[in-house]
């Protein structure tokens, strides 16, 4: 048995696998709190209106109804929240700004009664003019959704000074070199306008919250990725000390950004406060869709190059539709701006990115935001320049890609990945140099995603006298496998079998501070904290063992749950008995990650650059425009895979979401009204949409800032895939400037191409 020696780098089974295949894993919707009642939310049917009156008397009179919450019930608190901009009331107070905005909420003994009560609430609206699209919101005479003066910075924007103006909620720009001179002198300039759709994350578990409000404390069980940020916002909203707000997070049925920051928690707490009972609110899918979504975008980009294919300059203007409230819009704007130049060396680059308010549901985080928006656009222009220059597209990239250590954007962290070897791996996987059969197109895309978010994480490891280590860490387990990877790290450092490591679920009253679960940060940042905590215990163990065995520290090793001195071993329980003098006691280790200097976070650039690489081989049905994906590949530049199987699995999931974003997914609005609000009309990829061949390639150069040289993955594939598919179409002579690539859109692009040819 070598068990106990190397845990890191091995594809050990998921620690939460058994409970999940048995259907016994608890999600918030599976939990019942004593005395709990059921909440439903009444949502606005109109995109923009003043609320003239709400009459809830009939609803309140319905037997079984416990409380009806409206804006009038939150006038005693500062009811506005938003981690970047405090622009959003937890329930509409005087104005509604999108179809689906919560206007009231009912708590009742059962869900049926709550539902019936909704229909008894009479709301009188005075409709206002709407700005339902980016163009409408940007028009000169556009009405303004928010009074700029009323907008205050949220608790966690981390983006310097926010200066909302008109319907612009955030503007982010940077420039380097003399861009116009570069374009004036360039031999080749490629220019285009592009459109990216609103997309629904579809975490299969919709947002669900149970809230309990006591005298001066609040407890919530919530589907949230960032329990400590939710805690802070709830404390701020309800005027409580943060430590009196307890956020408990069981397993999450997928997150993908949809459960980042604060979502349904405030309204549930406010309803519980009014009801005086614990309340559960569970979104339906149509409600989840209007709770958060991916930003739709329009973008203008031009790229300059010399005749031999050397990239010279790039200029980008992009407008992201953040909907009626900012949510994570400002961060998405900044990250999109960061992704806009792409991973290339420029003599001149200029990027302007705006987040725009419209009368549509708020847009926030969705896996690979920014990079998913921009990579396909930049990469399609790089392909076009390669065609001009007569260069193979892999060669084109090898010629122009940044090398490790080069600057990515002004003032940010330099590149920490070997992109050229990554795309060579991809090219080999796709048999890039092999001849293609007629009608087959190949494409690839390379991008960078600013990853990691604010680097603050902590962890505690307790090793007890039974030889079991319990890890406290507030990372949310939402499918990515954090608990498994952390268990491996602890097992590795303490020489324990995997079965002797337990990981607690996030609970702000019990598990220590972690900034968030997202931005591909957990293995890298929380993982480092976990490793340090385990190392702390390891040192204590060794020190205890030197006393117990009376041997020098250097002569000891830890494995198989025991301290070894040559062939002599002392199991941890036995060591504890000798050290503490009884069958008890424990060793406690702590670990922490914090910014190296200054503001940390954004000002100094990302914790690491996540590599976004995708490759595709496609065929197109010329009659219908339907794309068949023959091969799909991604490269996970992971530094060091702690668990290769989990990395591959997460990558494949990201790849498939990338396929959905590229081919199918689009929330369709008409005057702010969502037209496809169920999965009957919003197509999420199914097993039949799988590519014929699916490759997830790992690049392990141990160049990440995390444990054993690890760095985050899981988002890059999503951003790389649309670029790869767009470029595979380009390889077939089909040029597109709008996602998703529905058959009709591809068919139209082919028709337009034919017309151009014959003209």
């Amino acid at each position, binding site marked *: 048995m070598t068990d106990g020696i190397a845990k890191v780098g091995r*594809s050990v*089974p*998921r620690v*939460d*696998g*058994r*409970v*999940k*295949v*048995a*259907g*016994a*894993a*608890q*999600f918030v*919707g*599976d939990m019942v709190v004593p005395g709990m009642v059921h909440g439903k939310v009444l949502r606005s049917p109109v995109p923009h209106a003043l609320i003239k009156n709400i009459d809830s008397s009939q609803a309140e009179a*319905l*037997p*079984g109804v416990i409380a009806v919450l409206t804006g009038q019930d939150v006038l005693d608190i500062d009811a506005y929240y938003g981690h970047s901009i405090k622009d959003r009331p937890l329930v509409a107070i005087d104005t509604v700004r999108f179809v689906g905005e919560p206007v009231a909420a009912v708590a009742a*003994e*059962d869900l049926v*009664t709550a539902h019936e009560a909704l229909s008894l609430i009479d709301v009188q609206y005075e409709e206002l003019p709407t700005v339902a699209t980016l163009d409408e919101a940007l028009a000169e005479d556009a009405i303004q959704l928010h009074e700029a003066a009323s907008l205050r910075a949220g608790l966690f924007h981390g983006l310097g000074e926010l200066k909302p103006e008109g319907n612009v909620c955030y503007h982010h720009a940077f420039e380097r070199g003399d861009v116009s001179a570069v374009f004036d002198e360039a031999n080749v300039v490629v220019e285009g306008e592009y459109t990216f759709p609103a997309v629904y994350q*579809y*975490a*299969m*578990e*919709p947002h669900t919250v149970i809230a309990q409000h006591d005298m001066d404390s609040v407890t919530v069980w919530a589907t949230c990725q960032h329990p400590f940020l939710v805690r802070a916002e709830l404390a701020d909203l309800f005027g409580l000390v943060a430590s009196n707000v307890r956020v408990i997070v069981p*397993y*999450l*049925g*997928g997150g*993908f950004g949809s459960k980042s920051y604060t979502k349904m928690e405030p309204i549930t707490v406010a309803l519980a406060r009014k009801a005086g009972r614990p309340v559960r609110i*569970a979104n*339906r*899918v149509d409600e989840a869709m209007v709770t958060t979504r991916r930003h739709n975008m329009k973008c203008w980009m031009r790229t300059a190059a010399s005749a031999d294919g050397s990239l010279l300059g790039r200029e980008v203007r992009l407008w992201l539709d953040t909907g009626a409230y900012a949510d994570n819009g400002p961060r998405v704007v900044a990250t999109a701006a960061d992704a806009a130049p792409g991973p290339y060396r420029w003599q001149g680059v200029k990027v302007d990115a705006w987040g725009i308010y419209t009368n549509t549901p708020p847009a926030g985080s969705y896996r690979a935001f920014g990079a998913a928006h921009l990579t396909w656009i930049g990469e399609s222009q790089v392909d076009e320049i390669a065609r001009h220059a007569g260069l193979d597209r892999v060669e084109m990239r090898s010629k122009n890609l940044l090398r490790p250590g080069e600057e990515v954007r002004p003032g940010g962290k330099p590149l920490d990945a070997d992109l050229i070897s990554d795309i060579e791996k991809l090219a080999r996987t796709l048999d890039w140099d092999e001849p293609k059969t007629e009608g087959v197109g190949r494409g690839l895309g390379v991008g960078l995603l600013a990853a990691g978010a604010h680097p603050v994480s902590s962890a505690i490891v307790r090793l007890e006298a039974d030889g079991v280590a319990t890890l406290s860490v507030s990372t949310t387990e*939402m*499918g*990515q*496998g954090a608990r498994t990877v952390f268990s491996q790290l602890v097992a590795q450092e303490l020489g324990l079998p995997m079965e002797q490591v337990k990981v607690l679920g996030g609970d702000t009253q019990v598990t220590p501070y972690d900034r968030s679960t997202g931005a591909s940060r957990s293995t890298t940042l929380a993982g480092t904290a976990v490793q340090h905590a385990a190392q702390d215990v390891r040192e204590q163990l060794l020190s205890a063992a030197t006393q117990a065995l009376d041997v020098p520290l250097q002569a000891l090793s830890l494995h198989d749950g025991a301290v070894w001195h040559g062939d002599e071993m002392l199991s941890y329980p036995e060591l504890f008995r000798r050290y503490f003098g009884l069958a008890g006691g424990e060793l406690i280790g702590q670990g922490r990650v914090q910014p190296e200097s200054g503001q940390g976070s954004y000002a100094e650039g990302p914790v690491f650059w996540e590599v976004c690489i995708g490759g595709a081989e496609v065929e197109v049905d010329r009659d219908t425009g339907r794309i068949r994906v023959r091969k799909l590949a991604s490269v996970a530049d992971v530094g060091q895979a702690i668990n290769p*199987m*989990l990395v591959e*699995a*997460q990558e*494949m*999931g*990201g*790849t*498939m*979401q990338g396929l959905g974003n590229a081919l199918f997914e689009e929330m369709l609005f008409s005057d702010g009204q969502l037209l496809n609000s*169920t*999965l*009957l009309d919003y197509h*999420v990829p*199914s*097993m*039949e949409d*799988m590519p014929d061949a*699916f490759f997830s390639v790992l690049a392990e150069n141990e160049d990440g800032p995390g444990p054993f040289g690890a760095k985050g993955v899981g988002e890059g594939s999503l951003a790389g895939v649309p670029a790869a598919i767009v470029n595979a179409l380009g390889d077939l002579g089909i040029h597109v400037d709008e996602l998703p690539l529905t058959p009709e859109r591809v068919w139209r692009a082919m028709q337009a191409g034919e017309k151009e040819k014959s003209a």
Partner: protein
Amino acid sequence: MSDERPRMPLSLRVNGQSIEAVIEPRTMLLDFLRDGLGLTGAKRSCDVQVCGACTVLLDGMPVSACCTLAYEARDRSVLTIEGMLQNGTLHPLQEAFLEHTAVQCGFCTSGMVLATKSLLDANVALSREEIKHYLSGNLCRCTGYWNILEAVESALKSNQESASG
């Protein structure tokens, strides 16, 4: 609140156990299982019988519990994920899901396992394309399906081997 609502008796078998209950005719099977019996393995997601997270087997056939009246289960037999466990031991199919890392967040898993169980019970040899078609009504947002397909294929294969051997 509730006195005027019509009620009806319901007797059925759930995971091999006889159950007698009184329900409203409009009670959905998913609510009956989750709220009435505390069997929370079946999940509510799309609620329009597209995603398959609420899949249970009714007399061996997969149904969407979110859109099936509990009334339809009268005098019939329901299998939920909780019934897959025999004396605390996982079914070989569940072991196959574990072995192939076919689980991530776990929210689709119960439905995916039960849909596959109905395929397993039919005991017919299927091509990869046929398996994909059969399971195309069970969505998963985490895995990209590849590992699920591998798990299902391996479970079907060992099932057929044990059936023929």
